[in-house]
């Protein structure tokens, strides 16, 4: 094994292709005979479809196929199967797909869309989660009780509640009784867009034998394969999903997005492939968004700063469809103690249908929204008690032996060290200048996935001693190709550039549940490690026989299998890759194919009434960010001067990539903190462009100081924990806490705009709060 590869900042394997413009994304594909698709979307937030007439659309020259929900009334969904590929009886948000056209040119497809006649009867809409759960609220999904679902989710029939998750840890009333003081506050998070630079894109083609091939810019080829197979009633093995480089995901390309629309069209084009690349406006309007949240938190605590009890109500504005969103709401519930130990807990997390764009996963999977509330709540308690915000976090930080919201006993937790390190990096104890302030926020996140979410890997050795690694983890920018190649090379004793990583093709590459949940280094990493160890064992067996030495005296270095104590006694990996050749020219064994798989062991479901579980998740990853800001009291503008971030990643397999991932998370978190909000008015999105929906640019970048703590995770590869999403979670509350430190106003409603700061400063000047 080469010890140097784990923890080595090797260059990204995809970088040459990406800096030369040669990296292929789905939108770059040109296939012979390819048709182009456009989608007709609902202009109404909530309406009953009376009739659809597509006959005129076919009159446009070049139009090859037109499909509607009448042709394909199929349902699709990951956890709660509540969505049609095209609206059938009702549309439920502005942007809901109603029909689609495939034509020889985009212009023809566009023209044909305009000729589809849809007659609708508008229905009253619901545009905030609290009105949606009022007794007289219009129902968005009348047939909720009939929808198929995974049993872990609990819809409330004949309401707009798609999932209600309860956590009952101890007797909450007893907890409040024991507390010295109680503090209550509410926090708001608006809807946001992922803003991956690459718009969603896919191509679908149907072969004569019924095989459906889909090239998709998706995070999870196997999930897309399964969902399409179910929705269209095709055997899973006849759906082939190919995923080249993905131009950013952040959750917005998890599960299925536009693939179903294309398969429906491709079934009617006589084998011609159909391509769809969404416009930026469609990405804003028609793809999943981060759910909105209204959080009400009531906390009981002691005067020494110890948290005792917390009652939380989380009302998620989950939009028109919740097929994926129900799980975010669940994750928020079982994480609702945040990164702190709270003995008594009562949480009600509600996934609520509204006539807003469909909510879905967004980097952090509910944790960014949850921690916006929890970490400001703790900060407010610190200030009420006159305690230092760092000190109150150290008092309450989860640590070995404390329990989570579900009663799981934690171990191997490095949060306290992260807090101290982040405080030091931001200069917590240094004197501050007027109008500047410092804030700190902690976070925790676990991979939110079913207990049986699996990874697998295959390694084929080649006759020149190189290896091909087959995986279905997607390269969405996080560096999966590089880190997984490092693991394979490390175990096989090969240089990392001798490991070629295949891009996902479900026809050939082995199963991967999804590229989500910050789980690839952890879960696929374990599978790759085991596959490489399997290949290594095969090499050692053959080398032992060939060299006449026992296996335990052999190792592999730089492509040679050799005796540990005598490197001259050796045989090349290249000479063994296709089998062992005997001195007489005969052969034994055969080509080396290593196989490995991984499922985290021992995950238990939540008790439906109490939410308790001894092991609700695979593992927890903790982290801390501290921010320094300066506030302009004339304009209310917040300038972030510096952000320090420290995460307990278990093991940074590639520190260069880990730092880059963290810096990216900080800036996304800063952007969410200061700028981002989908402005929805009666369901209509008012800012579907980068002009009106501002995201951070290079000009916004503060000083950043990133550090890692490495408390090994028992079942992580080399101790590694997932942490990709975590890097944006605490930025916004850290900035909000810093703003309070700077000028004494607290913004509980994201984003922290100059208008809100100014209004709060004026109110404070008048003696209000």
């Amino acid at each position, binding site marked *: 094994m080469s010890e140097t590869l784990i923890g080595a900042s090797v*260059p*990204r394997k995809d970088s040459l292709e*990406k800096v*030369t413009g040669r990296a292929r*994304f789905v939108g770059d594909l040109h296939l012979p005979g390819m048709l182009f698709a456009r989608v007709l979307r609902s202009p109404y937030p909530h309406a009953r479809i009376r009739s659809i007439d597509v006959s005129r659309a076919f009159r446009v020259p070049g139009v090859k196929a037109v499909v509607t929900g009448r042709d394909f009334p199929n349902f699709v969904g990951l956890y709660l199967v509540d969505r049609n590929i095209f609206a059938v009886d009702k549309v439920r948000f502005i942007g809901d797909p109603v029909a689609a056209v495939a034509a020889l040119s985009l212009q023809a497809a566009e023209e044909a869309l305009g000729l589809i006649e849809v007659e609708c009867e508008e229905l009253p809409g619901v545009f905030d989660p609290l009105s949606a759960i009022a007794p007289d609220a219009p129902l968005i999904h009348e047939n909720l009780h009939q929808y198929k679902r995974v049993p872990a989710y609990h819809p409330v029939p004949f309401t707009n509640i798609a999932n209600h998750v309860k956590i009952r840890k101890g007797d909450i009333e007893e907890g409040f009784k024991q507390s010295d003081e109680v503090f209550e506050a509410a926090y708001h998070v608006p809807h946001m867009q992922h803003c991956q630079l690459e718009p969603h894109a896919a191509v679908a083609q149907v072969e004569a034998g019924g095989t459906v091939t889909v090239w998709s810019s998706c995070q999870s080829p196997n999930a897309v394969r399964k969902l399409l197979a179910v929705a269209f009633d095709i055997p899973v093995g006849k759906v082939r999903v190919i995923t080249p480089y993905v131009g950013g995901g952040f959750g917005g390309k998890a599960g299925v997005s536009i693939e179903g629309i294309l398969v429906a069209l491709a079934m009617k084009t006589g084998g011609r492939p159909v391509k769809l*690349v969404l416009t930026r406006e469609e990405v804003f309007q028609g793809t999943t968004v981060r759910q909105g949240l209204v959080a009400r938190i009531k906390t009981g605590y002691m005067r020494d700063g110890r948290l005792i009890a917390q009652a939380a109500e989380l009302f998620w504005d989950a939009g028109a469809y919740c097929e994926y969103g129900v799980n975010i709401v669940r994750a928020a519930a079982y994480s609702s103690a945040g990164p702190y130990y709270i003995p008594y807990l009562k949480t009600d997390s509600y996934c609520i249908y509204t006539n807003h764009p469909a909510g879905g996963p967004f980097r952090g999977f509910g944790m960014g929204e949850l921690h916006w509330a929890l970490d400001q709540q703790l900060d407010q308690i610190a200030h009420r008690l006159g305690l230092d915000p760092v000190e109150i976090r150290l008092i309450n930080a989860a640590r070995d032996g404390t329990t989570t919201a579900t009663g799981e006993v934690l171990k191997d937790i490095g949060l306290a060290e992260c807090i101290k390190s982040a405080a030091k990096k931001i200069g917590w104890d240094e004197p501050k200048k007027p109008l500047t302030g410092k804030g700190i926020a902690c976070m925790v996140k676990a991979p939110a996935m079913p207990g049986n979410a699996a990874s697998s890997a295959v390694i084929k050795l080649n006759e020149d001693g190189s290896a091909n690694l087959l995986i279905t983890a997607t390269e969405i*920018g*996080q560096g999966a190709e590089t880190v997984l190649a490092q693991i394979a090379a490390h175990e096989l004793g090969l240089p990392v550039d001798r490991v070629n990583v295949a891009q996902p093709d479900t026809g050939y590459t082995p199963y991967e549940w999804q590229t989500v949940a910050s789980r690839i280094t952890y879960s696929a990493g374990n599978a790759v490690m085991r596959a490489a160890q399997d290949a290594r064992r095969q090499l050692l067996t053959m080398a032992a026989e060939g060299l006449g030495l026992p296996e335990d005296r052999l190792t592999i270095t730089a492509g040679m299998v050799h005796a540990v104590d005598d490197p001259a006694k050796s045989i090349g990996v290249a000479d063994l890759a296709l089998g062992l050749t005997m001195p007489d020219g005969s052969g034994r064994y055969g080509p080396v194919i290593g196989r490995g798989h991984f499922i985290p062991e021992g995950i238990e479901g939540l008790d439906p009434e109490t939410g308790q579980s001894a092991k609700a998740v695979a593992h927890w990853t903790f982290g801390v960010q501290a921010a320094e800001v300066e506030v302009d009291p004339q304009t209310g503008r917040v300038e972030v001067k510096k952000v320090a971030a420290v995460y307990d990643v278990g093991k940074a397999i590639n520190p260069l990539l880990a730092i880059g991932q963290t810096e990216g998370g900080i800036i996304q978190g800063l952007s969410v903190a200061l700028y981002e909000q989908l402005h929805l008015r009666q369901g209509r999105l008012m800012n579907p462009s980068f*002009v009106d929906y501002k995201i951070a640019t290079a000009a916004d970048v503060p000083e*950043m100081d990133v550090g890692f703590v490495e408390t090994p995770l028992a079942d992580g590869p080399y101790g590694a924990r997932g942490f990709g999403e975590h890097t944006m979670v605490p930025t916004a509350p850290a900035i909000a806490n810093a703003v309070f430190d700077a000028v004494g106003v607290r913004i509980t409603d994201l984003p922290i705009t100059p208008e809100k700061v100014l209004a709060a400063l004026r109110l404070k000047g008048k003696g209000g709060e």
Partner: protein
Amino acid sequence: MPEKIRFSVNGEQVELAVEHHHRLIDVLRDDLFLTGAKEGCGGGECGACTVLMDNEPVNACLVLAVEAEGREITTIEGLAKEGRLDPLQETFIKHAALQCGFCTPGMIMSAKALLLRNPHPTETEVKEAISGNLCRCTGYKSIVEAVLDAAQKES
């Protein structure tokens, strides 16, 4: 009616017939198969389609193809010369100044335009020059470092 236009792309003369409403990005990507320039928004807001027109950065989604007549266009594909990477490409690799890679071609071309007109930019000048190029992955810091490093190398 298609119109015949002539211009240079990455040092090669091309002549082709384009529709008046076709944009430079359509011609580059669909007719010349130079798919390095990406379309991220179609409105000149994200910079992913940045190419050089007579060494000035332009959003290829905002330029009509006919406007390229007689001009010299450089795309990401034309940056490496005789198999040798441009210093910017080398430093982007070294600093891992990319993640998903979708913004990378445009980002590098904006940086190239900056270094062509100002070989020794300050950090602020680099940030300004690439502030029209959105990146959702990297947090920009590594990109700024890569551009400054390339400027250092070229001098």
